């Protein structure tokens, strides 16, 4: 079976393709964009496409053109598994299959695609959190520096003061540090 993965996000496409290689027998090809000529050469049985790809509309139109110019790709409508299509839409994956392909053969492909999409989303979320943590740590360092200079505190004292402010206000220490820096900016007159 041949599977074509279309995803504007190359990292995620690689992850999906890698996952699909475990489902056999499979030949997987991936691309950031849907190219009709390339697709015709490859003749996929299934096209897995990210919902955020603008190429979905092109893919859908191929069914319309099938009267005069038969093409293999039609959309995945699986009446045997209610809820699957909904699940896929929510996961951000759409699948188009050749007419007549047994739904049971598509299921594992869609499952892999959905799980890899979820994994990517989680990884991206983790990365964003790490970045935010790092940013917050830098802000705390700068706020500490400011307190040491303005209040004549040592590093430990500056940190304890920040922590107390955070506890009193019920806010994260990074947020308190950011507020402090912003107010210091205002007092120095560089506000905007």
């Amino acid at each position, binding site marked *: 079976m041949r599977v074509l993965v279309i995803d504007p996000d190359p990292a995620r496409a690689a992850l999906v393709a890698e996952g699909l290689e475990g489902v056999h027998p499979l030949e997987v090809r991936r691309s950031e964009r849907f190219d*009709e000529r390339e697709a015709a050469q490859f003749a996929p049985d299934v096209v897995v496409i990210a*919902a*955020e*790809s*603008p*190429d*979905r*509309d*092109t*893919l*859908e*139109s191929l*069914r*319309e*053109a099938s*009267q*005069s110019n038969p093409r293999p790709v039609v*959309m*995945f*409508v*699986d*009446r045997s598994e*209610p809820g699957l*299509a*909904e699940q896929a*839409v*929510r996961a951000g994956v*759409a699948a188009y299959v050749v007419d007549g392909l047994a739904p049971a053969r598509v299921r594992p492909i869609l499952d892999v695609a959905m799980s890899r999409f979820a994994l990517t989303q989680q990884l991206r979320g983790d990365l964003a959190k790490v970045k935010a943590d790092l940013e917050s740590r830098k802000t705390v360092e700068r706020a500490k520096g400011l307190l040491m200079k303005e209040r004549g505190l040592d590093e430990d004292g500056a940190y304890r003061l920040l922590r107390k402010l955070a506890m009193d206000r019920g806010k994260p220490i990074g947020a308190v540090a950011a507020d402090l820096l912003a107010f210091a900016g205002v007092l120095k007159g560089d506000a905007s």
Partner: protein
Amino acid sequence: MSGLADLKLGFIPLTDCAPLVVAKALGFFAEEGLDVSLNREASWATIRDKVAVGALDGAHMLAPMALAAAAGASGGLTLDVGPSLIAPMALNRNGSAITVSRSLADTMRAADPQAMAGPPVSARALAKVIAERAGQGAPPLTFAVVFPYSMHNYELRYWLAQAGVDPDKDVRLVVTPPPRMVEQMRAGEIDGFCVGAPWNAVAEREGLGEIVITASAFWPGGPDKVFGVTEAWAHHYPDELRAALRALIRASAWSDDPANRDELVVLLARPEHVGVSPKVLERALADEIVFHRDGAGVPRREHALWFLSQMVRWGQVAADTDIHAVADAVYRPDMFRAAALSAGPLLDPAQAFADGPGELAPLFEGPAFDSTRAGPYATAFSIGRARV
């Protein structure tokens, strides 16, 4: 707390997403007690699917897309259980245009200067170019539209066919997402397209293409996008729907007002909305697109019937489809009316409804559409694929 559910609404980056963007940015949704998040989507198929499964509550939609599912069109639905889509409001009239590449425009002028004295121009010059190319054994010209079920597809097909060009035999028709139309024309992959604003103006501004006919010349006051929801959602959330419609109607009236034009252009130009230069947005807003006045927001059943007649004409749905029943099920002017009336003094009913159905203007080089005879009209064209 207003007690109303939060809403997720989808849109495609096009000038006519304005009512949604304005209702959010100017706080019209908030004044109705609605907390709305706007989601920019990359394809009409995704808009349709997300609304169908409830990942979006409502969206900016191609009017024929909402009708296709109910009419039993093959490509109308992705899902096994097809929730019916309804259109309780029209978002705009006009806004699309047909553009051809500069070199094709020059060839057309050489072939028939008289037919090219426009815009708007007839496709007669194009018909001559196509005949010449066929004689030379050259490959067919390629034209792009945005979706099989779209005003753009029917407009281009109608325009071609009026000049004797069969859109299924004499040219190659493809589907291309709006933001890619211009780059594909630049790459020489497509020779012409029919797309919504601002992409025709972008092609002209970049010196790549020439607009040959705008929608307002093709069919003055002709339909375009709608606001679509599922029937089930409308049934479960009547208060939210009415509040959302009121906010959208106010936003449409605001968007029509020339005094707000500069602000509207800046808002739409932002990267999270349409993301193009303000200059190219101005063009269709100046004298093409109507959002509200003259009853533009009313989803008129005559418009639904014209779309359905074209689906029959081009073989997308069977000729024996009960198109009058489909139009009444999907287009819901009653909901628009109820919402507009409940807005009280915020709206001028004379503008919101332009009372009375109003005469339909004739289509380009063709007769006016008589909606009482939509069935015979659909099958009477000399070029068509009606499945009778």
